[in-house]
């Protein structure tokens, strides 16, 4: 029996598919003949078998470097753009990094990393490389403080859900995402574009939303993903009217009924679906019936993904999960049975499970545990509300109370603010236990969203 064949990204990028490209706000790079070109100035051979840190200022060169390095290097650690440079030394030590691919080589001259390779455009011609061995993909968790954890994946695990779905019907998709492709949610979309024979349009953090949408249109984007916070921002911007993607996907945060309905109304001819995935647990499932939560019969073993609920938290075991945390003091990634504890708390109502919040995000209200997401979902059901954030505030009477910051939908008459506030409070009282009803509702113009596209919860 011959050894199992190893596939790398390059093996999905033959020249037989014409018209494929990867683009950002400044460049369009053809993927059709990408295998005979190099973003690493022809130095790929030097990186063979190395543990490589990928630290670039833009997604385009990052994506091109991933294509070139996969199947050649031993490890590849993807650094998201907001990584605190103070954490680099710890990450380099934990991942055993011995080479860096960067666009700022001067920054690395005085470091202990012996091999520094510069990634640059335009691409140069090179002889196509052959896949040598499976590369370990290392990603960072998007935690709020401290050194991020390093999560180890294989390409096979990362692409498990994509392969299981099979090839897309119809013309090759043009994918886009509001995420950065160096995070799990964005990488999923980049890999979908590469494996599906399609193209991809990258986001740019410096671009105005209206310009971004114009670019998505100009490039014919058919499939697009983002967090509920990304989508709420788009719905608020007024730019959605010019855009008509075929498939709209949400992941990374709880997709409540309000945002699903809002997207269905804004894109009446699109399929709108939400997916459950995390850097550690991989892609769990997609929900395409237009409803929040997921059917209870998703628990158990479904298409090779096993799920169970332990102490309210969703646990997942599948070949798509990460295989380990990497580093000197790395904790175990799975429980004794191989399940990843997601820390996402679910609640069974009728024949459906609903996400109520993160175990680590609980706020304490007078000694009672409250998930801010549950309160936000109740507030967001008001038709004039576009986005909200619930948090705790110190109280001299009860220790803590719930307060909510709310963004009203575009064009809401400010004179109605008091009436809307009363309606929101009535609605919350009808749906929530009394200690969860906000004591104070403030109307705000904007809410902070983290670089990972999630609502910022500084007090959580």
């Amino acid at each position, binding site marked *: 029996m011959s050894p199992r064949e190893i596939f790398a990204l390059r093996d999905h990028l033959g020249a037989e598919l014409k018209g494929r490209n990867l683009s950002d706000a400044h460049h369009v790079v053809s993927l059709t003949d990408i295998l005979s070109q190099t973003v690493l100035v022809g130095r790929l051979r030097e990186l063979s078998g190395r543990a490589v840190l990928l630290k670039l200022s833009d997604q385009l060169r990052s994506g091109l470097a991933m294509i070139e390095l996969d199947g050649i290097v031993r490890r590849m650690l993807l650094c998201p753009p907001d990584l605190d440079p103070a954490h680099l030394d710890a990450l380099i030590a934990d991942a055993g990094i011995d080479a860096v691919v960067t666009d700022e080589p001067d920054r690395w001259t005085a470091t202990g990393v012996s091999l520094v390779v510069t990634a640059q455009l335009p691409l140069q011609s090179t002889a196509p490389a052959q896949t040598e061995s499976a590369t370990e993909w290392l990603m960072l968790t998007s935690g709020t403080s401290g050194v991020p954890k390093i999560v180890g994946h294989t390409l096979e695990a990362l692409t498990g859900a994509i392969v299981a779905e099979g090839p897309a019907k119809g013309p090759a998709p043009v994918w886009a995402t509001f995420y950065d492709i160096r995070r799990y949610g964005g990488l999923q979309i980049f890999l979908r574009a590469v494996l599906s024979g399609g193209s991809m349009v990258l986001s740019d953090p410096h671009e105005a939303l209206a310009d971004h949408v114009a670019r998505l249109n100009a490039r014919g984007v058919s499939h697009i993903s983002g967090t509920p916070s990304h989508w709420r921002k788009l719905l608020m911007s007024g730019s959605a009217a010019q855009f008509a993607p075929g498939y709209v996907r949400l992941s990374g945060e709880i997709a409540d009924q309000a945002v699903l309905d809002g997207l269905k109304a804004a894109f009446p001819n699109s399929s709108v679906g939400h997916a459950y995935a995390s850097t550690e647990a991989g892609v769990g499932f997609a929900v395409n019936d237009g409803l929040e939560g997921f059917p209870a019969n998703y628990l158990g073993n479904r298409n090779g993904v096993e799920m169970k609920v332990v102490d309210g938290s969703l646990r997942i075991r599948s070949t798509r999960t990460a295989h380990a945390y990497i580093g000197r003091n790395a904790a175990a990634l799975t429980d004794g049975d191989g399940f990843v504890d997601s820390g996402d708390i679910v609640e069974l109502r009728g024949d459906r499970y609903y996400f109520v919040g993160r175990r680590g995000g609980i706020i304490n209200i007078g000694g009672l545990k409250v998930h801010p997401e549950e309160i936000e979902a109740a507030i967001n059901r008001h038709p004039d509300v576009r986005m909200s954030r619930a948090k705790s505030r110190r*109280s001299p009477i009860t220790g803590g109370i719930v307060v909510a910051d709310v963004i009203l939908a575009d064009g809401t008459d400010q004179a109605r603010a008091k009436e809307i506030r009363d309606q929101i409070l009535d609605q919350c009282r009808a749906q929530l236990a009394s200690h969860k009803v906000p004591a104070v509702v403030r109307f705000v113009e904007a809410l902070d969203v983290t670089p990972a596209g999630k609502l910022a919860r500084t007090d959580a």
Partner: protein
Amino acid sequence: MSVRSKVIEAIQQIAREQHVTLPALSDDLSLHETGFDSLAFAILVARLEDETGVDPFTISEDAAFPATVGDFVRAYENVPA
């Protein structure tokens, strides 16, 4: 609007929201007799802090929580501007 009328208005607003039937709000009515529970008082103090900029019960470590409606109003009236 005087501090007193702001306080009384906030009490009445919260009573409506919480479906509490208030007795007449005289100065010597004990807070217990208003029908407010601790959550309702917590809401009241938070809203008055937003409106007046002060929380007299947090500023002073040793301030006893007032016993009557009159004491409660005076706690806000006596805060130095």
